[in-house]
């Protein structure tokens, strides 16, 4: 059976229902437009805990941590390449942190000349966090801090139910392990844009090359 516009239509449409659905759709469209305000990368370096972690220009403390596969990774073993150390609260319950790590992965996917290490506390190395690590196979070290490094640096906060979690922080170390950039925040909903990290690394590598040329 085919209908025509002229077919008798005596049923009354529910205008109230239509208006309700329309309001819902308009609200969701507004959410669609504004949702990127929930969390986002930030182009400016922040230091909201100046007392935590080593200052720019000082050597990052030596550490040796296990990565998620159990291999022990020492900072001195990474010498010779610049290192980006990203302390993350959780790859389980923190959506902004997952977004931050995925942005890092995209930015550093082709950078074999830089080591990126993501550090989380042992309490946050949950099965869901390990699933995230496995499914998004980024060329990173995922280090599990079971030795109190995060607390010793003053970068420890609290996750749900009081479980220790790292504050969101990023350190860029040069080839000698000296801090070239630090970004420490209290809230994971913003993070330093990877472009800023790449820019810092490019300037530091250029500086290192000039130093070598001078030495030669």
């Amino acid at each position: 059976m085919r209908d025509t516009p002229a077919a008798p239509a005596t049923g009354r449409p529910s205008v109230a229902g239509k208006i309700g659905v329309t309001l819902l759709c308009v609200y969701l469209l507004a959410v669609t437009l504004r949702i990127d305000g929930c969390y986002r990368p930030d182009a400016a370096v922040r230091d909201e805990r100046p007392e935590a972690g080593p200052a720019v220009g000082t050597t990052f403390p030596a550490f040796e941590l296990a990565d998620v596969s159990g291999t022990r990774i020492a900072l001195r073993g990474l010498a010779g390449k610049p290192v980006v150390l990203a302390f993350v609260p959780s790859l389980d319950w923190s959506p902004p942190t997952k977004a931050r790590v995925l942005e890092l992965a995209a930015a550093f996917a082709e950078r074999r000349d830089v080591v990126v290490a993501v550090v989380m506390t042992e309490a946050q190395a949950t099965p869901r966090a390990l699933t995230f690590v496995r499914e998004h196979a980024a060329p990173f070290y995922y280090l599990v801090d079971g030795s109190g490094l995060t607390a010793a640096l003053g970068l420890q906060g609290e996750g749900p139910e009081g479980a220790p979690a790292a504050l969101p922080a990023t350190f860029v170390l040069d080839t000698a392990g000296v801090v070239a950039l630090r970004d420490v925040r209290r809230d994971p909903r913003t993070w330093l844009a990877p472009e800023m990290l790449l820019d810092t690394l490019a300037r530091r590598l250029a500086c290192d090359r000039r130093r070598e040329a001078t030495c030669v």
Partner: protein
Amino acid sequence: MPPRARSFILYRLLAAATGVLCVLIGILFVVAFLDRALFPVFARPLFATDFWGYYLLAFAGAVLFAWGGCLLSAARAPRHSAGIAVATAAGLIVAAIVRLLAWYSGEYRLAADQLRAEAAVLLVAALGFVWLHPPRPRRDVDEPAPHA
């Protein structure tokens, strides 16, 4: 052209386009499952997921195929399938909400703008189904159709 006739034609076009899209995506999902599970045709699997993912894709493909068929039927006889418009609008709104939640989850960061664009398109289509579908005849609502 009177407004009612214009909205009638627009509704039929919307239902037909959505129906064709659903049928095509449904076929794609089922073909992807068959390719992965039984008859390797393509050089590599069509989707980056595991065997359970393909199982669910095949199920979703079958459901999309049926949904597309219903929409094509609604495009052919809009007044006698008014409920399909309401159900389709509800499905599209849920699909849009799923995309917004996926955006928020952080796991889909690298496809973030795509998710937002998809959600917006789905919501606009839902509004189309809500406002364009013609009212059903009273006979469908109040009493059974007389037998010929």
